[in-house]
């Protein structure tokens, strides 16, 4: 019960913080939509041959679509950067740490606000242990992250999990610091086209 209360409190705080911070980004998401009809109107008002008008219209539609796609890709890259924060785990553990949960509430808020976003959660391990068992451990970690976000209200159909085991380390080396950096889950955000 205590934990739940804490979680709600943290969530509320983070939501407020996130809203403040998300506002900056918001204008970038939408503005392109307005332009397209305006240009089309201008073109069609010029009373040239019907075929030429049609060509013009198609061309401008194409340009508008391109702009939209460019915007989408830009936002996707931006969100991926914002979400480049990673969830870290303890050795041979898949339980979420307190700081992991804090980060995940922020991720959850972004996902709840932006239904176009789908994510891939990738689970990773450090270099110790076998390839095989680390594949299992990586999948457990990504699943724990997914479970948390489902509990947070994000539809499970918007999330895919994948395990990389120990195959994709962020930091090479056999030091404890490297190990700690590599025991992680990270996110890839896809925005629906």
């Amino acid at each position, binding site marked *: 019960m205590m934990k739940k209360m804490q979680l709600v409190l943290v969530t509320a705080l983070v939501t407020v913080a996130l809203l403040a911070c998300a506002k900056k980004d918001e204008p970038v998401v939408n503005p392109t939509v307005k332009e397209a009809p305006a240009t089309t109107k201008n073109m069609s008002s010029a009373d040239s041959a019907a075929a030429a008008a049609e060509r013009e219209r198609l061309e401008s539609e194409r340009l508008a679509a391109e702009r939209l796609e460019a915007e989408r890709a830009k936002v996707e890259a931006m969100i991926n950067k914002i979400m480049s924060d990673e969830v870290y785990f303890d050795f041979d553990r898949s339980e979420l740490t307190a700081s992991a949960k804090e980060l995940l509430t922020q991720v959850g808020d972004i996902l709840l606000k932006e239904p176009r976003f789908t994510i891939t959660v990738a689970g990773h391990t450090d270099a*110790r242990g076998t*390839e*095989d*068992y680390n*594949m299992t451990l990586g999948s457990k970690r990504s699943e724990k992250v997914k479970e948390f976000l489902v509990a947070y209200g994000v539809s499970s159909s918007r999330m895919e999990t994948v*395990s990389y085991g120990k195959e994709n380390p962020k930091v090479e080396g056999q030091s404890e610091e490297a190990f700690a950096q590599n025991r992680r889950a990270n996110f890839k955000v896809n925005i629906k086209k």
Partner: protein
Amino acid sequence: MWLHKELFAMFERMTKPFYFSFLLLFCTTVSFASIDTIDVDVGISVFKTMPIGVVPFTEGSGDFSKQDEKPHEVIERDFNLSGRFTAVPSSKFDLVKFSRERAKFYVTGRLDQVAEGRVKLSCYLYASQTKDLVFGESYVVAMKDVRRTVHHFVDKVIKQLWGEQGVASTQLAWVSKIDNVKQVVIADYDGFNRRQLTYDTSISMMPVWSLGNADIIFVSFRNGKSQLFQKNLSTGKEKRLFPQHAQTFSPAVNPVTGEILYAGIVDGKSDLYLGDPNTNKIQKISYSKSSQVSPAWSPYASEILFSSDRGGSPQIYVMGKDGSDVRRVTFMGRYNERASWSPEGDRIVYTSMDGGKMNVYTCAIDGSDITQLTSNAGNNEHPTWSPDGMLIAFSSDRTGSHQIYIMRKDGSNVTRITNGGDNTSPTWSWYGKNEDNTLKKEGK
């Protein structure tokens, strides 16, 4: 009653020659055992190796300078790797040396060029005392096939002197980092004749051999996830296996049927499935709340070894091939993984992590009689049995980079077979065909 008598008589008839050969075998073993203490290389080895002389081949007409190794050098390495022999090299027949070192037999041969790029390779096994020819074969082969032919001859010598099939003609598959991407490579068991099998820009790993050695089954991340693929070695054709699961890994080939046991991830949990690579039909084998991984078959495919974290950390378990009768095997240590059943059926080899370091252990199939095979030499992992059960190949980072090593099943005689790069996860091939028909034999 008469039936019993008849049977007994038949039994007697059948076993008489066996008694004799047993007696013979026993005699020879005892005599070799008495000299084992001389061999300092063997150290703590419980193996009784047989000293055997190796004399360079006579070179007839032709230019043989292009060989990367002379035939007798290949033979010497084969003998020393085999876990059966200790080579006694000598530049020429030397009765004093052979008798001092108790080499009752010696091997030599002759190399003649018969045409451009083709040679006649004659290999002989002699008894040292009498200089009697015990066994000899000649082959006419391409120059590049001399190595392969010599391996073939070594296996014949093992058959002759041990009555068992050797592994000189077997192969290894492993994972090699090439341009910083993990790729699957295959090579002769001694590390020579290496060939790259995958050329993807994404990770390839966990190679195993299909029954009959025609294909390699491996894991590829080409679709962004670990997925099993099968690649034919002669045609190069590839196909994805068991697409019912998004993520599959840890393949283990059934030594009787060729079916593939593997780990598939569903809802973040890996379970074991049995799949037919020809039809892609699958069935679930393990049912548990925890994850299971790293399956391995018993030699006759009646039992399955696997790892499970049901106790909180990975431990080795065994069950029937249908998933019934699960028993825990390992109790010592917190991290025991990737078990593999010896071809003789009596022991398992596995990797255990202690103090953050991985080491190779063996134990009896009930988990008793634990023997540590590697220690104080970096991480040692991914052990794989030779098909004759005499040897274990594994990877180790003891020199600073991961390389492939072969040792005897008691941990002695550790020999590195790769140089440079990063080489991990070896798996030994099955026996090839009993007779290599591609080698054209000439009359004696």
